[in-house]
């Protein structure tokens, strides 16, 4: 049964029981405002829920009854026995419909005019000042203008008159209902109302505590029994142990609820919001039945609502905006939840305009969060993180829906409070996706147990990235410890210093717990690292709550109590002004630099040199069993994420190994297409500058570079992709050999697809050009303003934000790049496109997938400009002569 409906039924059945009692109490105390208020409220709730669930019949009955009750509440009419019986009759009718709902999941056929008419009659008994709402009937009462007492008597009489007028249809219907109502449930006995009971949360909490205690005692017993071989207790202890485990799991289950219960209000909210804002919103929820601790659900309910609202309000463009951007009229907001490694991931995605980077910069500067200069140095991703800063709201216009000052910082704080984290990914023009990672339960979580100066502490596993063992390689700047970790500096802090632990003991911090909070990385120095334990988190007592460094305390399996550290607050102590300065440090940006450092994935395949590929080209590393590989249409494929993925062997092999072995593969993907490159072994990831020393004429290789001191083949991913999908790059590449003729020409490559950037950079680099690649026209224009000079610009056309055409027009309109040759790069190369490109100022127009044409075009441009210069010189000479 629909979960919402089920919940409603449980609740409605309970309400009915309450109402039965209350209405009867009302009859006894017709003037008790409190009772009337109660009844009114319950009826109102039922009406509201029915409307929401689309149960028109129930809604109508409840609505009419509510009308009458409303008047009683306002003391406009007296709760006479007649009215009370009518209300009770209404309740019976509602119950009847509820029973039928439970059995068939639909409202029964028929109508309730017999009852609603009578209710209306009472309601309209003095309809003068009643809002002439939808259901204002024809018969206007005339007693309105008379004295009040008279009015009252008139009201009291009306129902009877009405009844007298409408008796014939009533009895049969009523009769039928009655039988349907009374008999069937009695027969079945196991209705939803009786299958679930409501239990006070405190009882569950107590139960949980007792179970934790039981687990500890069990553990101690096992410890004791271990020392005694062949003890009489061994067998019963094992049984006890199993039962305890089962008990623990069952009790945990009582705390679990499907996340859908926190979402139930969202469709309605989105619908209303769409109406208010005049937007068409297509709201999808996926994974509603993902279960998590009810405590966690409570904690994320409001943040989620806020974020979904945000996505619909700020994320999605107006309908006109969408149409103008060539998007479907209805904006999509998708909320999904799924499990991932002991955590729940909740994604909130929209296909709207994406975050407005410029606006964020503006706002951050205006709010004094950072200077303009600092912001400009940050990557888009880093800039986007500013929305999580306190007091930040990008909506200049405060709508009724959002922008009420509860910003994303509150959302972040709430999520971090429960040990979760939030990340976002936003692409201008394509939408934003927020990822919330939260623990399944607050009660139990995995934590790393560490020791410092003889004291043990727990660090929540969620924030631990890796452990590094150190010897003497910690360096200091003005006393602040730092560690070089894969070519980055990691700020360190020692637990001894953080907690002011004074010991005689020699400082022997030997391990670094590399932790991540949000986008900040830092290392915690500790002496020893023990296991990861599932710990039961208990809040610290009130007298300790003023210490921010602790997130709680816990009892370990051995019965000792230890404190749980709070990585969030450690992060703030490590780097007071974290986000800005930290990210400045790791964006290692060399504004004038070319051929920036690249991460390479080293692997081995077949004989010869180790091979490498730019890590950014690899979307995933996977392992497949060779038994799962199939041969189809003369290609090797494997089923991967519900698709067939072609496989190519990097070592040129063309056979599936006979025995079923596990093989590492590199997955490359672009635009939903994926291929797997089967390698022998994945060796390492190295960061270094890409400088190809030797060009290769071997297929599948761009050339050789020295990586890690060894000559390494840089593989040509496009070769393999082409092999896997003959049609991916329609054009056939001619043989290589465009020797390094580029000299030291500098080329700016503008393309929003990191795939093509990474694909073309090496190609151009091989051809001898110095390449600077940026991911948007906006970024390119920043470089233009900075005054960087390039010999040629290669730009994509279809880009979010400023398109290639606009970009060309901008720079041709008097910028310092006015005379720089401009090559358009596009998937479309129709004559019209060419024409449009020329008009916009592009010197040439080449197909994105035809790399040789690009090289050719560049060569032409440089030759031409060389000739032009010669020509000019000639002319000048002539002029001089």
């Amino acid at each position, binding site marked *: 049964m629909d979960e919402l409906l089920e919940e409603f039924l449980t609740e409605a059945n309970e309400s009915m029981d309450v109402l039965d009692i209350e209405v009867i109490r009302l009859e006894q105390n017709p003037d008790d405002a409190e009772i009337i208020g109660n009844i009114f409220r319950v009826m109102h709730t039922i009406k509201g829920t029915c409307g929401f669930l689309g149960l028109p019949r129930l809604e109508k009955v409840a609505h009419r009854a509510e009308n009458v009750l409303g008047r009683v509440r306002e003391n406009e009419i007296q709760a006479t026995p007649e009215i009370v019986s009518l209300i009770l009759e209404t309740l019976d009718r509602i119950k009847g419909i509820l029973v039928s709902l439970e059995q068939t999941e639909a409202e029964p056929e028929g109508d309730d005019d017999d009852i609603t008419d009578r209710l209306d009659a009472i309601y309209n008994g003095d309809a003068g000042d009643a809002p002439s709402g939808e259901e204002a009937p024809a018969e206007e009462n005339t007693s309105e203008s008379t004295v009040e007492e008279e009015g009252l008597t008139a009201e009291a009489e009306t129902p009877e008159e009405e009844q007298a007028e409408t008796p014939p249809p009533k009895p049969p219907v009523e009769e039928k209902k009655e039988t349907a109502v009374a008999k069937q449930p009695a027969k079945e006995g196991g209705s939803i109302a009786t299958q679930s009971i409501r239990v006070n949360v405190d009882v569950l909490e107590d139960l949980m*505590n*007792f179970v*934790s*205690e039981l687990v*500890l005692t069990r553990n101690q017993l096992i410890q004791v029994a271990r020392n005694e071989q062949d003890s009489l207790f061994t067998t019963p202890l094992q049984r006890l142990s199993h039962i305890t485990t089962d008990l623990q799991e069952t009790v945990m289950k009582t705390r679990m609820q499907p996340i859908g219960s926190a979402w139930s209000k969202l469709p309605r909210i989105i619908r209303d919001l769409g109406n208010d804002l005049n937007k068409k919103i297509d709201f999808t929820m996926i994974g509603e039945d993902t279960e998590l601790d009810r405590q966690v659900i409570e904690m994320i309910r409001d943040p989620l609502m806020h974020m979904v609202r945000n996505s619909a309000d700020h994320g999605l463009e107006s309908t006109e905006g969408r149409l103008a951007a060539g998007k479907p009229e209805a904006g999509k907001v998708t909320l999904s939840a799924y499990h991932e490694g002991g955590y729940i991931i909740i994604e909130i995605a929209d296909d709207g305009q994406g975050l407005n980077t410029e606006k964020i910069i503006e706002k951050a500067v205006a709010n004094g969060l950072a200077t303009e200069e600092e912001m400009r140095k940050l990557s888009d991703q880093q800039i986007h993180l500013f929305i999580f800063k306190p007091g930040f709201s990008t909506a200049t216009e405060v709508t009724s829906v959002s922008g009420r000052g509860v910003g994303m910082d509150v959302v972040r704080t709430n999520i971090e409070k429960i040990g979760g984290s939030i990340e976002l990914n936003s692409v201008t023009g394509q939408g934003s996706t927020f990822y919330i990672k939260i623990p399944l339960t607050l009660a139990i979580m995995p934590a790393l147990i560490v020791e410092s100066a003889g*004291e043990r502490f727990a660090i929540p596993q969620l924030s631990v990235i890796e452990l590094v063992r150190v010897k003497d390689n910690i360096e200091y700047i003005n006393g602040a410890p730092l560690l070089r970790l894969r070519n980055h500096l990691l700020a360190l802090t020692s637990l001894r210093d953080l*907690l*002011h*632990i004074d010991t005689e003991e020699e400082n022997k911090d030997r391990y670094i717990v590399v932790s991540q909070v949000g986008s900040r990385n830092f290392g915690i120095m500790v002496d020893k690292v023990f296991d990861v334990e599932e710990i039961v988190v*208990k809040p*610290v*007592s*009130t*007298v*300790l*709550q*003023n*210490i921010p*460094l*602790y997130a709680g*305390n*816990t*009892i370990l399996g051995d*019965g*000792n*109590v*230890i*404190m749980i550290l709070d990585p969030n607050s450690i992060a703030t102590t490590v780097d007071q002004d974290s986000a800005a300065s930290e990210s400045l440090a790791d964006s290692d940006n060399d504004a004038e630099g070319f051929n920036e450092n690249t991460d390479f994935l080293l692997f081995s395949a077949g004989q010869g040199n180790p091979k490498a590929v730019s890590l950014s080209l690899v979307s995933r590393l996977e392992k497949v069993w060779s038994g799962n590989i199939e041969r189809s249409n003369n290609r090797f494929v494997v089923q991967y994420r519900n698709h067939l993925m072609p496989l190519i062997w990097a070592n040129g092999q063309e056979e599936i190994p006979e025995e079923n072995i596990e093989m590492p593969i590199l997955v490359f993907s672009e635009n939903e297409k994926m291929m797997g490159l089967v390698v022998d072994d994945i060796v390492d990831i190295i960061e270094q500058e890409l400088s190809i020393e030797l060009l290769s004429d071997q297929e599948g290789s761009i050339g050789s570079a020295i990586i890690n001191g060894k000559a390494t083949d840089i593989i040509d991913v496009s070769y393999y992709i082409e092999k896997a999908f003959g049609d991916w790059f329609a054009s056939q590449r001619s043989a290589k050999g465009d020797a390094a003729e580029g000299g030291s020409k500098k080329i700016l490559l503008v393309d929003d697809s990191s795939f093509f950037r990474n694909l073309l950079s090496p190609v151009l680099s091989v051809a001898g050009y110095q390449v600077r690649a940026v991911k948007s026209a906006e970024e390119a224009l920043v470089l233009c303003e900075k005054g960087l000079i390039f010999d040629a610009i290669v730009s994509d056309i279809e880009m979010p934000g400023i398109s290639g055409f606009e970009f060309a027009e901008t720079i041709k309109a008097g910028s310092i790049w006015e005379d720089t040759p401009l090559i358009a790069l596009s998937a479309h190369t129709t004559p019209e496109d060419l024409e449009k490109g020329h008009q916009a100022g592009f010197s040439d127009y080449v197909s994105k997938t035809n790399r040789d044409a690009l090289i050719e075009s560049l060569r032409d441009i440089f030759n031409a400009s060389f000739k032009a210069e010669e020509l000019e010189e000639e002319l000048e000479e002539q002029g001089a002569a």
Partner: protein
Amino acid sequence: MSNIVKREDFSVISPSEGNQEFVTIKIENQLFGIPVLMINDVLNFQPITKVYLASPEIRGILNLRGHIVTAIDLRCVLGVEKDETLDEEMIIVIEEAGQWFGFIVDEVGDVISLPDENFENNPGTMDDKWKKASSGVYRMEGELLVVLNIEALLNTLIS
């Protein structure tokens, strides 16, 4: 948890009805009393996990049958100097508003019953720290018993 007690049962602190029963404790030879019904447990001293950065009154935390008990050093609360010669301190465990606290004292004595008429408010000359921790004094033969006001005492620690 043999004697978990509901809060309303120890309205006994009110000095107006009959006799009150107290567990007597000693700190630096001064006799103190805690209403007997408040007390959940009396423990011999046991290992306590130190909580760094906590105020000096808080000795640390310990595990009592699955409950985490925050151990509070009464000497420190009252401003009485540490006595290094003491090695067998005792802990009185009290559950207060769902949380467990252990008060570390020098020694725990008998349970005594005291008549209300012997109760007096805190004398004005009493040290401020003591005034905050005490709700009044009982006159006993040859000795005075200071009644500890646990709730007030905890409040001073929270702020």
